[in-house]
């Protein structure tokens, strides 16, 4: 068993220098504007199964992308090769490729006065995610799994306990002279137990804790125990009869509703008319109790960054206020297309045009506890997991595979599976009849427990 893994030597090269060089060389090559992004990262992961280390992975990589403009034409290239020849070839292909793209009157990088970054420490990077010695990292994974296995004799198998840590460093430069960089860290511990009934039927579920610093990570024992409880409660699941009943979404799945809203109100979908929410700015799209915020500036947030994918300072945007659509989420291009201002939600990979991504994007919690929310339900479904996609943002049609627990007279009773939940998002957003108080960020998108009425549960 390894006691200590070698750590990767830190890169000596100044990535900011590389990025600014690429931008200035693009401009010398005739580009009228250019952007360069450099990313490097390290990852560690280990999986322990039935007490034995199954996989151990440790590595790092870096890559670079450039986007060049000739007037209104743009193209991008990327490479993992940082040699002189590798970078030359990347730049040369970008300048060549831009010749075949179309003049798009709305294309371009942001104006110089829009650029900038949040000042102060956003608390996104903690070296301590790598501070555990190798053996202790493995032990975190082992402890999480063991806690799950020890919870109940019906936990008979496991897909393992895991511990992951990662850091990422991002540099962005453009031809207005913007240069920015930030680092983010991440660690997580998870368990995936399998429970088995006397009849041999198996169920699997999971739980995890994730944090930017090891000091905020839940104890592996807590993670393992919750994973076991979530798995055990699925044993003996059955189908139910087709019915139209209230459906309560566990926070692990209520975030999906926010994601559908995001898909519907991001600038790309809106300007293409690929969303039923296009053109609804200022209109009611949900009930009075629904307020949705996107905020990329929250210290320590999983969706926080000092600037977006185009070098614009991140901000707080009220997306929906008391049911009224107050703002789309936009990058520079889609803002221009719609005659609006960017909301600093540009998200980008190494290549291609920038897309749109959320910051910390959440549904404002309500006053009731989740238990109070079940209280008024005579017959209903509590969904803990969805399977498949089955959502069409153009029409709003919604149909997903689901499993969870049946609610009878305000109490969770028996587990259910192999059912579908269907409706239309146009009505669904108005039918969020209750929002609980249990908002917790386990990622960039977060929502409390919610109750939605009017959905069809499909079963026997």
């Amino acid at each position: 068993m390894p006691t200590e893994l070698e750590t990767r030597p830190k890169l000596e090269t100044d990535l900011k220098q590389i990025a600014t060089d690429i931008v200035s060389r693009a401009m010398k090559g005739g580009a009228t504007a250019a952007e360069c992004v450099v990313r490097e990262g390290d990852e560690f992961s280990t999986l322990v199964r039935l007490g034995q280390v199954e996989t151990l992975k440790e590595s790092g990589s870096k890559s670079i992308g450039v986007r060049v403009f000739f007037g209104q034409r743009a193209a991008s290239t990327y490479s993992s090769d940082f040699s002189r020849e590798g970078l030359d070839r990347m730049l040369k292909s970008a300048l060549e490729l831009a010749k075949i793209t179309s003049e798009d009157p709305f294309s371009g990088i942001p104006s110089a006065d829009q650029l900038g970054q949040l000042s102060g420490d956003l608390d996104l990077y903690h070296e301590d995610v790598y501070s555990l010695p190798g053996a202790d990292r493995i032990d975190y994974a082992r402890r999480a799994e063991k806690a799950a296995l020890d919870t109940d004799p019906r936990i008979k198998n496991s897909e393992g306990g895991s511990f992951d840590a990662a850091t990422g460093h991002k540099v962005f430069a453009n031809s207005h002279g913007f240069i920015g960089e930030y680092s983010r860290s991440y660690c997580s511990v998870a368990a995936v137990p399998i429970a088995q009934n006397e009849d041999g039927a198996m169920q699997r579920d999971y739980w995890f804790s994730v944090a930017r610093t090891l000091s905020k990570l839940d104890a592996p024992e807590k993670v393992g125990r919750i994973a076991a409880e979530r798995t055990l409660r699925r044993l003996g699941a059955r189908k139910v009869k087709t019915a139209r009943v209230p459906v309560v979404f566990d926070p692990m799945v209520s975030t999906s509703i926010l994601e559908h809203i995001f898909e519907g109100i991001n600038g790309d979908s809106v300007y293409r008319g690929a969303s039923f929410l296009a053109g609804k700015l200022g209109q009611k799209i949900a009930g009075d109790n629904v307020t949705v915020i996107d905020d990329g500036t929250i210290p320590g947030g999983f969706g926080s960054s000092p600037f977006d994918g185009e070098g614009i300072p991140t901000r707080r945007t009220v997306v929906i206020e008391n049911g009224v659509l107050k703002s789309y989420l936009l990058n520079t291009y889609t803002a221009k297309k719609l005659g609006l201002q960017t909301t600093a939600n540009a998200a980008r990979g190494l290549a291609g045009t920038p897309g749109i991504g959320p910051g910390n994007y959440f549904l404002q919690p309500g006053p009731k506890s989740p238990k109070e929310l079940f209280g008024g339900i005579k017959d209903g479904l509590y969904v803990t997991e969805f399977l498949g996609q089955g959502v069409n943002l153009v029409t709003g049609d919604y149909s997903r595979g689901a499993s969870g627990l049946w609610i009878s007279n305000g109490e969770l009773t028996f587990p259910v599976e192999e059912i579908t939940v269907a409706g239309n998002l146009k009505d669904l957003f108005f039918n969020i009849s209750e929002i609980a108080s249990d908002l917790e960020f386990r990622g960039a998108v977060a929502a409390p427990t919610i109750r939605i009425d009017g959905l069809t549960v499909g079963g026997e």
Partner: protein
Amino acid sequence: MENIKDKARFFVEHYGLAERDLERYLAAALSAGGDYADLYFEYLSSTALSMDESMIKSASQGISAGCGVRVVSGERTGYAYTDDLSSDRILHAARTAALIASAPAKTTVHGFQQTQARSLYPVALPSVDAEISAKVELLMRADKTARAYDPRIKEVRASYADELRNILVVASDGTFAEDSQPLARMNVSCIAKTDGNSARGGAGGGGRVALDFFFGEKNPEFFAKEAARQALLQLDAREAPAGEMEVVLGPGWPGVLLHEAVGHGLEADFNRKKTSAFAGLIGKRVASEKCTVVDNGTMPWRRGSLNVDDEGEPTQETVLIEKGILKGYLSDKLSARLMGIADTGNGRRESYEHIPMPRMTNTYMLAGEDNPEDIIRSVKHGVYAVNFGGGQVDITNGKFVFSASEAYMIEDGQITAPIKGATLIGNGPDVLTRVSMVGNDLKLDEGVGTCGKDGQAVPVGVGIPTLKVDRLTVGGTARKDPGGFMQ
């Protein structure tokens, strides 16, 4: 043994790799006593173009290269990779992966045996190296055709992407396999609008093909018309029913049923760990006797095909279910060794950054004897689903879903109105036992499928003939026949 230059031409030319280097890296990987080690060199070049509002708005190209080192010791796997192919960095990765074991070195590596592989996708000119103007032409033609199809077609997006993946796999068991894997696809997506009503349609295709593929029968016009047709059809779709009913699946892409319902559950890693609902069912009946299901990585030009898998093993045709009886699993080297079964050549990975695991290639059901029209005619009240989006499965409890994007009601043996997209849900180990009719019209999908597992995406193919499933739950919204309760 011939000179390495005959074998690993690509990596020799680009990185000056010599056989003694490979032996040295493997020795470092096994320096702490591992049982087995392999190196996966990858050089991937790719192009992506997209057209939107009749403009080429995005064009990108890129290169990513690296080497992954795996060391296996018993059931344990150590993995490290580098995107810097210098000796120093590969040796560093090898020593990092080596730490999974903790003993003196015991295995040595001397010489390699080149894998004799098929040539399933012998393209003369890989599409990544083809003239970019020809790729632009494909998108312009698709855009023009879709817009001309009907005035209600308002938005058209077309995209084209290709790649060429050069790989070299060498292993301490003497494996030495090289492959050059082209992959190309194009997609067209349309939105149709009328007053107060919109709908989307999409189509696409491709494979391990050269650019000339898209200038043949499966050309931009074909995909554009298909996408436009689907969008228009959806404008008139009525609510889908909810509950259990007879379902007829059309040939081709609805084969995603097999991929989700049985394919994943038969991947050997889940069965080695006994976490699959199919664990222990070899030799047992899991489907009606009309069903024979295979995974076949050897089909020329197909998206899911490979000359060798990502462990350097030649791919093959593997019978999974024969006349309803479960015959075998899809395995990689690790699961083959640990389970004492044959390696079926299904060890795949997304890239050099990933550990290989058992994955599907092209998974399909062999044709039966029923006439597709008779199958439809036999249904009193049910759904005919001909196009699907994605699907998902929980391999432990066997529950799977797949989402229809084009479907119709069948009433009294006749296909009637189109219905809105709906998710279908079932139980993997028993859904195929309810297959009562199998058509004589086997078809594979058009070649755009991508499968995800443990965060790794790989290209795959699926296929079925027309199938009748006697009972499957359809996740619609329409209030249906008396019997189901509604409140």
